[in-house]
């Protein structure tokens, strides 16, 4: 049973270009074509969920409730700069190098 406030978009045509932009992924035309087909068929299965009556049910973010886990605010376990940068694709003088951001 779908509640009145919820719109049911599941299974509707997927705007692959829009989603790829949100996800920051460049896709080729053939990848887009493939995704249009199989996302639609997968979302069709997700549609089953709209038949479940979830009135009054709280959502679970985890398998069991664990909230606000804090530790003492002590500095611990930090890498030195060289270790932290050791996997950067481009680096110089202790900095990560990227193309110019501001023209």
């Amino acid at each position, binding site marked *: 049973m779908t509640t009145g406030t919820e719109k049911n978009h599941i299974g509707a045509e997927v705007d692959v270009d829009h989603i790829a932009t949100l996800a920051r992924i460049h896709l080729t035309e053939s990848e887009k074509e493939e995704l249009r087909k199989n996302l639609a068929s997968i979302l069709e299965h997700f549609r089953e969920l709209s038949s*479940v009556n979830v009135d009054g*049910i709280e959502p679970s973010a985890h398998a069991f409730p664990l909230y606000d886990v804090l530790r003492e605010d002590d500095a611990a376990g930090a890498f030195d700069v060289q270790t932290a940068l050791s996997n950067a694709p481009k680096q110089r003088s202790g900095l990560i190098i990227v193309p110019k951001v501001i023209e």
Partner: protein
Amino acid sequence: MDGEIFYGSAAELERLLDSGELTSQELTEAVIARTKLVDKKLNAFIHFDEEKTMREAIASDRRRKSGRKMSALDGIPIGIKDLIAERGQPMTCGSKILSGYVSPYDATVVERMRESGCVLWGRLNMDEFAMGSSNENSHFGNVANPWDISRVPGGSSGGSAAAVAAGEAILALGSDTGGSVRQPAAFCGIVGLKPSYGAVSRYGLVAFASSLDQVGQFGRTVADVASLFQIISGHDERDSSSYPFEKRDYGAELSNHSRVKRIGIPKECFGDGLDEEIRRAIEAAIDFYGSGGHEIVEVSLPTIEYAIPVYYVIATAEASANLARFDGIRYGYRSAAAQNAIDIYFKTRGEGFGAEVKRRIMLGTYVLSSENFESCYLRAQKVRTMIRGDFMRVFTDVDAMITPVTPSAAFKIGEKIADPMRMYLSDIYTISVNLAGACGLSLPCGFSKTGLPIGMQIIGRPFHEHEILALANEFELAHDFRGMHPDI
């Protein structure tokens, strides 16, 4: 010990190491030689560092000689799924996007294995970012099933399962988000444990779906899996989702199966779609428990019919957020074709991720987008509450449950890869255990007529690993599956 040393159980090998009949150096050399012999066919390893591994073995022998043995697994070679960080070793997660990455730190589980003297052996192949049920989604090529190399080993921890089944490691670590330890364990005829959510630290485990991921263990015997779980489990303040539960002496409690009084059989797991040979093997196992003094009762988990859609909404949503960190800026691969800073994100991710990872990021982004958030994501989280509620209700009545692990035995390479939804359905019996946060174990319980292993799943209450391990041990001791090895 009878037979080949690389097929020894950790418990037998410990006795030989203690008595001086065997050294860790000899054992590790045997495992490495075995790997070099069979991995051309299996492709279970992405990388191994022979010299480093031998140094650890020799150090273990030295410790033992001077009476400083650190644990039952001191000197035992253990493989590691390639998404768990080991300092100084490459970590690819089966992906091109992490090519060249070398871990600058140890995962907590690896640190605990080091402190226990384990020999950290080799980085095991996997579906890219643990997304898959067949190990066909690895950038480093698919893994073959040692029982029939034309078949898949299961996934996503296919390399871990194949390696242990073929004697390329004594034990291995994997990870299980929806069945990625239990399903490959079943396909490869070995034991696989998916601990309760929160039982094992995920610090240093590359995240796929954070509300579901757990580090799991593979071994050829239940006792070996219990030994490794003993070492790596327990609270870790570096993982805020790890839970301060009461740890047991899992080895000592293995014989304590009589404490499990009532075993539930969820009727929904024995309906249409289950292979007949698997049904018969599981029913025979249930009869074994019934005649062994356990009370067998039929139970019902009505909401698990929604487990697959709930899982794929939640897991893809979490994955799309977790994998946003792979942007070509701070580590791993960066596209050479990028024209400007934003283009780095698009092109690096477009070139660096494989087809299944892109599909799941796209799905996750879709279900989290503002127009679908309520109808997809929030709704799936609510149905998840209901699934967990079903499990907890059943666990007030029974101490454990038995189900199949998979609807069929290992399928052919290429059989399901073109149809993602069919592939997703192969996790139908394992997924709900992750959603509920319970523990689950896959145990060999038979063979198909064509010689493929069949597994059964034993599900326990959260943090009651000692009970499912004891039940599994009871079955294992009465059957001879642990002595059977693939002809590879």
